[in-house]
């Protein structure tokens, strides 16, 4: 369907795209419109998230909505901005060209936000302008004459506060209109550039098959793009058009003309004139609330304290708030296993269900409350705007190590999972910086390690009541070790293998906002769903396979349960690596856990549960309950009778997990992002090597000191 068709009743569902600056509340708006009717996926060929949803018009007609990645301009500088541009220009075969565009604008800084709108209006498609954060604008004393703006632009302008749901109804009404006016958008291209625009437009229409208005818009874009980012899945320019573009660029460079800047200037001139008509800046009533908060948060001393306090609060919450739900889940899991054992006759299938499936998955699910709290906090920090300040404070440190603040975000994401962190490195232009960040990202303790740390901490301290301070302290220690390791290795790499210049850093600091609790909650629910899905599928599958590997082949009749496990495939594998891990205090059963962690780190917990439960079970054959894993670990012994899980061993194990490269999925992603096997292999080697050496030092050193 041609994008330049006159607005008429659409025979099919119109496709809307939401576009806007980052931090303008786009996801809040998208959530408000689509609720739970959204689907998150991927644009084929690019690691950019595709968000689509459905909202309903006032007549109940479904309207498709695409949430495009936030951008400041259609002149793309990164893959996700490239995707936004490509989808709007209809250059992606996998996504329909949006029929209508919703431009979301932050009312508190109208001019900058209007720059993108100005570019979008060039496209000649129906646009609805949504002014978000009107409450914050009012608080800042900014008064926008909405009616005037509507008149000047000729398109519907809807003030709203997406967080409170205000204005959503009016937006839906506007979206339901069968006709939307096209904007009265004309502006003067500087004469020096006009000729180039005309020529490019003609070529785009003739050789790329673009409709006239789209062609003009794209021509203007090409002339603002100094190094255009192209991504997989987007149709490239025709050879003739590219030729014309290059010819003009060469000519201007020879003349010393700032061709890209000229267009930017023109647009802002037009925007400035518009803003003068439409915005009545109120009296600036001294420093805003945001400014006052920032005075503390970015203070040389207080700022650091705040950061440490925030991290500590996070970990304390993880331990205290989650306790009751965790215990409850544990009881339910044990009860379920007991029930199954009661109703089924003894046999392999029953064992598979209780010792494999329920044991494996159940143990992982007990960690759900803690992971939820972690994601809740991260969501809260993002939502309020604190994260940007953290990056601001950290930048100097990062550049000491040779990275820039941009690496902080991928590294911070890696606290949840290294995979998206590694993918987020695509925003880093410098290849050496990018590679360094990728190489150290897995050292940031990801959430999958959390169950391992928690299990070890529980097993480590004698007695049932572990002092909270100890738990929190140990957690912080592990995270600090991981973070320290990441920085340390980054420094090392940047000095040796990957020497290069420190890169640029330009970033917006959004004003502080009250967290949108509904959004954070939705986010958390989404994460919980994903976690459970992962548990239900991958981890279930692995637990079943692990059970099989630790049960078969069966030892000859009359063997003890310990001999049975040893006879099995898993046992043999564990024994095979035991010589390697004995010096760091691990035995073959832990070895099984280490190997199975390659599938996913948290599987260590499941596999340990399976291996020890398989063992203990035989000893308590008629027992209705499964002994809690912690007790099982405490009772575990070396062949000579020494306890296996001494506090020192637990510590050594935790340290091993901080540093070792295990997750297969991460290795696969690194392979894909670096296009070679060399780096993932190197990464696995250096990380696992470091893990072993440090565990060795801790274990042997500790033993020598008499622990």
């Amino acid at each position, binding site marked *: 369907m041609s994008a330049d068709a006159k607005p008429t009743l659409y025979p099919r569902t119109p496709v809307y795209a939401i576009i806007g600056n980052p931090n303008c509340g786009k996801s809040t708006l998208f959530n408000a419109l689509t609720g739970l009717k959204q689907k998150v996926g991927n644009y084929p060929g690019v690691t950019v998230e595709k968000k689509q949803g459905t909202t309903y018009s006032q007549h109940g007609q479904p309207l498709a909505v695409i949430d495009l990645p936030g951008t400041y301009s259609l002149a793309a500088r990164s893959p996700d901005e490239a995707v936004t541009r490509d989808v709007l220009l209809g250059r992606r075969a996998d996504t329909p060209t949006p029929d209508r565009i919703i431009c979301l604008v932050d009312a508190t800084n109208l001019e900058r936000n209007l720059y993108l709108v100005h570019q979008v209006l060039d496209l000649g498609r129906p646009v609805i302008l949504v002014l978000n954060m009107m409450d914050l604008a009012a608080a800042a004393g900014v008064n926008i004459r909405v009616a005037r703006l509507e008149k000047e632009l000729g398109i519907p302008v809807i003030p709203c506060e997406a967080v409170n749901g205000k204005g959503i109804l009016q937006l839906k009404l506007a979206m339901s209109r069968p006709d939307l006016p096209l904007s009265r958008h004309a502006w003067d291209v500087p004469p020096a550039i006009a000729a180039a625009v005309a020529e490019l437009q003609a070529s785009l229409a003739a050789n790329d098959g673009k409709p006239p208005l789209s062609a003009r818009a794209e021509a203007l874009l090409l002339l603002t793009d100094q190094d255009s980012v192209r991504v997989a899945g987007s149709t490239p320019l025709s050879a003739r058009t590219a030729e014309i573009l290059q010819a003009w660029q060469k000519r201007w460079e020879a003349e010393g003309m700032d061709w890209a800047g000229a267009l930017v200037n023109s647009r802002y001139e037009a925007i400035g004139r518009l803003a003068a008509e439409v915005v009545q800046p109120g009296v600036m009533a001294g420093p805003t609330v945001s400014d006052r908060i920032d005075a503390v948060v970015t203070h040389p001393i207080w700022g650091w304290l705040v950061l440490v306090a925030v991290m500590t609060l996070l970990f304390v919450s993880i331990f205290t708030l989650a306790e009751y739900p965790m215990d409850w889940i544990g009881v339910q899991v044990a009860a379920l296993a007991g029930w199954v054992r009661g109703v089924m006759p003894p046999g392999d*299938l029953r064992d598979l269900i209780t010792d494999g499936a329920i044991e494996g998955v159940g143990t992982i699910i007990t960690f759900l409350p803690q992971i939820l709290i972690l994601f809740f906090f991260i969501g809260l920090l993002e939502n309020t705007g604190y994260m940007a300040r953290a990056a601001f404070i950290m930048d100097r440190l990062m550049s000491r190590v040779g990275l820039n603040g941009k690496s902080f975000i991928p590294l911070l*994401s890696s606290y949840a999972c290294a995979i*998206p962190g590694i993918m987020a490195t695509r925003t880093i232009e410098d290849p050496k910086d990018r590679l360094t960040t990728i190489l150290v990202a897995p050292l940031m303790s990801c959430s999958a390690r959390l169950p391992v740390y928690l299990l070890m901490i529980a097993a480590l301290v004698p007695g049932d009541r572990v002092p909270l301070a100890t738990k929190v302290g140990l957690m912080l220690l592990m995270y600090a070790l991981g973070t320290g390791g990441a920085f340390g290795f980054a420094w090392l790499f940047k000095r040796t293998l990957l020497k290069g210049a420190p890169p640029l850093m330009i970033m917006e600091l959004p004003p502080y906002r009250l967290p949108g609790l509904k959004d954070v909650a939705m986010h958390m629910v989404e*994460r919980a769903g994903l976690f459970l899905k992962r548990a239900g599928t991958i981890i*279930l599958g692995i637990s*079943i396979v692990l059970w*099989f590997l630790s049960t078969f082949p069966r030892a000859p009749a009359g063997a003890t349960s310990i001999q049975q496990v040893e006879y099995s495939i898993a046992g043999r594998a564990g024994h095979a690596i035991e010589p390697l891990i004995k010096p760091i205090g691990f035995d073959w059963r832990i070895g099984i856990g280490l190997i199975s962690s390659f599938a996913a780190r948290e599987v260590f917990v499941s596999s340990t549960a399976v291996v020890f439960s398989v063992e203990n079970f035989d000893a308590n054959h008629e027992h209705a309950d499964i002994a809690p894993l912690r007790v099982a670990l405490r009772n575990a012994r070396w062949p000579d009778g020494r306890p296996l899980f001494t506090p020192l061993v637990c510590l050594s194990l935790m340290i091993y997990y901080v540093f070792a490269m295990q997750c297969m999925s991460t290795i696969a992603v690194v392979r894909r992002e670096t296009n070679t096997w060399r780096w993932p292999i190197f990464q696995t080697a250096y990380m696992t090597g470091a893990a072993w050496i440090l565990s060795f030092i801790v274990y042997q050193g500790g033993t020598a000191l008499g622990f």
Partner: protein
Amino acid sequence: MSFQTIAALAIVALAVTGLIWRSVAKSAKPGCGGGCGCPSSEIKAKLKVVK
């Protein structure tokens, strides 16, 4: 072999097939497909760093 053993082995075979199929499908599709529970895009969007 008892019924239970056969059933158990069948399930194991199913699990293995499922896991292999997942890892093959994953390598074809870019990104984690959301399976790792990542908040990355949110962080990225909020912390848009300008190049």
